[in-house]
């Protein structure tokens, strides 16, 4: 079935709003008292049975956070957040170590089923027919770590990964079982002092995923984490740490959704990637947090710090993101190109509709010799939304032979939205070669009519044209995600025209 067709079917199944993940799971949960203090930080650390070094690390971050102020430079506008009016920890009850899926609350299992996330260890079969002229896609395995509010509820395929030497587990477990790795790398890319939200995260992060791929190992399957915020008034602060040791390779996928609520919810994650010599990390995100309703009420505030460190020579980190959700997105997945000949890539599709505000982009920091980076950003603004690409490309004094290519394309749907491009370029080494291209266009009425004359509805036509616009980026996603992302893009733009 053609993806566009399927999208429309799905759109029909959705009620008033387009968001199909807006349901709430009714389970009992255990929460920390509202508000933030040293005691809360201690409470979280104690809940996780953390060693003392971890608690001290958190406390140091907390104390620093008290001295910091929220950044205001992004082109986003929202009422002041009362950080004392939030819960910083929520865990589904009863809390016990989960040995097998049978021990997970069936309500939670159902939630993930509804979301289409496989917690059973089955190979995922490609859900669509092969496209004409393309061979059948073989079924593939994906290991999933499912994070529900503040805790990881299940991680699949652990045994099989262990055989390959790959460590993939909730970070809370890694702190206990692999303290030497966590201590060595945690905060080494995004220091606790980095920025207001990253520092807050360092103090109160609850769970997230940890990945270590040993030297020379090509991770035998895609790894993925699926984040779900369920609780009301609860911030989600997950922490992800991925280390690809010398000559290794890993592809990691991240997905997220949240129930539909009238109040705004805070999500402040930190993701750190470390690639050693000759290693490669491919990190893909489909961000679909609840964007708020058609009047701009509710939705997630997504303030995320993602950074990769190409620490070794010839290492490579590539970020691919599809951003469709959240009321506010503040997110700049970046690469520090430290190793000689290292390479950073950023492929982004950011869609805003309704009253969404997106301020997203990347930073490519060229430090080593002959480093290269590539930025392809596709921004699509519809409704009354504002969509900003903000990017920084720098070459430091010693970064001889740094190369960057940036292409930012924006597509406007309707005339009440805005697209903005804010590139910052700094070259302190004369040999740096940075290229920047930017275009802004409006979706063409003639193109839409052409499609409609051939039988597509207005919405199908918009979906098709937009999917064509973002194709270069979609191709960067693993197959399963590409199909899902394509559907999501059409759904996100539902009701954007006419």
């Amino acid at each position: 079935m053609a993806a566009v067709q399927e999208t429309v079917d799905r759109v029909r199944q959705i009620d008033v709003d387009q968001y199909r993940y807006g349901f709430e799971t009714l389970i009992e949960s255990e929460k920390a008292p509202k508000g933030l203090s040293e005691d809360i930080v201690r409470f979280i650390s104690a809940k996780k049975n953390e060693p003392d070094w971890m608690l001290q690390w958190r406390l140091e971050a907390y104390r620093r956070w008290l001295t910091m102020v929220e950044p205001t430079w992004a082109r986003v506008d929202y009422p002041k957040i009362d950080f004392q009016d939030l819960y910083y920890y929520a865990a589904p009850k009863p809390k016990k170590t989960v040995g097998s899926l049978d021990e997970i609350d069936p309500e939670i299992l159902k939630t993930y089923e509804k979301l289409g996330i496989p917690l059973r260890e089955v190979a995922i079969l490609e859900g669509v027919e092969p496209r004409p002229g393309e061979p059948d896609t073989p079924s593939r395995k994906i290991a999933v770590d499912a994070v529900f509010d503040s805790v990881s509820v299940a991680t699949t395929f652990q045994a099989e990964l262990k055989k390959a030497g790959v460590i993939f587990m909730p970070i809370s477990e890694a702190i206990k079982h692999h303290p030497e790795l966590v201590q060595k790398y945690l905060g080494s890319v995004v220091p606790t002092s980095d920025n207001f939200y990253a520092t807050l995260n360092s103090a109160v992060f609850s769970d997230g995923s940890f990945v270590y791929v040993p030297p020379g190992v090509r991770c035998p399957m895609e790894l993925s984490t699926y984040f779900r915020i369920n609780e009301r008034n609860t911030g989600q602060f997950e922490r992800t740490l991925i280390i690809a040791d010398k000559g290794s390779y890993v592809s990691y996928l991240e997905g997220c959704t949240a129930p539909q609520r009238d109040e705004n919810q805070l999500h402040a994650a930190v993701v750190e990637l470390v690639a050693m010599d000759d290693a490669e990390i491919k990190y893909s995100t489909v961000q679909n947090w609840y964007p708020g309703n058609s009047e701009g009420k509710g939705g997630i505030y997504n303030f995320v710090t993602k950074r990769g460190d190409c620490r070794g020579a010839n290492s490579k980190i590539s970020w691919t993101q599809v951003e469709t959700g959240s009321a506010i997105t503040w997110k700049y997945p970046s690469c520090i190109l430290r190793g000689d000949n290292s390479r950073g890539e950023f492929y982004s599709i950011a869609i805003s509709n309704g009253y969404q505000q997106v301020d997203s982009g990347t930073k490519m920091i060229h430090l080593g010799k002959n480093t290269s980076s590539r930025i392809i950003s596709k921004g699509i603004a519809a409704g009354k939304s504002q969509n900003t690409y903000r990017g920084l490309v720098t070459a430091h004094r010693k970064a001889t032979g740094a190369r960057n290519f940036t292409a930012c394309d924006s597509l406007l749907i309707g005339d009440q939205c805005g697209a903005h491009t804010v590139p910052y370029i700094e070259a302190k080494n004369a040999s740096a070669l940075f290229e920047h291209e930017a275009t802004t266009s409006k979706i063409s009425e003639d193109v839409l009519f052409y499609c409609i004359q051939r039988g597509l509805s207005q919405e199908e036509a918009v979906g098709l044209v937009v999917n064509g616009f973002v194709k270069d980026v979609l191709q960067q996603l693993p197959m399963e995600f590409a199909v899902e992302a394509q559907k999501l893009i059409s759904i996100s733009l539902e009701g954007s025209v006419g």
Partner: protein
Amino acid sequence: MAALLEVKDLQVSVADREILHGLTLTVNEGEVHAIMGPNGSGKSTLSHVIAGKPGYEVTGGQILFKGEDLLEMEPNERAAKGVFLAFQYPVEIPGVATMNFLRTALNAQRKARGEDELSTPDFLKRVREVSGSLGIPQEMLKRGVNVGFSGGEKKRNEVLQMALFQPSLCILDEMDSGLDIDALRIASEGVNALRAPNRSMVVITHYQRLLDYIVPDVVHVMSKGKVVRSGGKELALELEANGYAQYQEAAA
């Protein structure tokens, strides 16, 4: 013979300027009609209004298609019911592979008619047959819709779609412009192959040459937003010899 398309006293304005001033035209099932007329006389406007392009205000008259009020239908509904417009200027759709576009459109139409979607092998078979007979290489179908196609290739792609969708009314707006002599012959053969008792065609052209290939049953002369004369195929030859001068005055 039953009328397939009935345009009655149609008045159309664009941006508060009347372009069609009471146009009447009836096309019966199985007939091929040619419309000729000077630049700016409203030929493309008529084809757009029949297809349902936004931006035109119908201020009077009506259009019936198979006896139903066409102006009440959404443009994609018209397509599903069998109205096809081969555009004078086909647009480019970057990033959307032609093959994917054909399939999405065909299935959208089938679905609207309550038919099953075509299976992948059936679809591929049909596309190969049709594109083969029109001399369209498979490689072209992998490219974005009309992206980087030559003028002639774009027109051939229109005929390809027509052949694939099997509409009951085909409106061809200057299909011959931009086609070289061989391409014109191949495309015309493609069109002729679609002639059928239950299918009608409206062929808009400036040149008799096309009508040597696609021989019309009726020829209309349009001038200043009206049909000013209708006749048999010999009318086209007369126009070729004498031009439009006499009709320009008649319409004024």
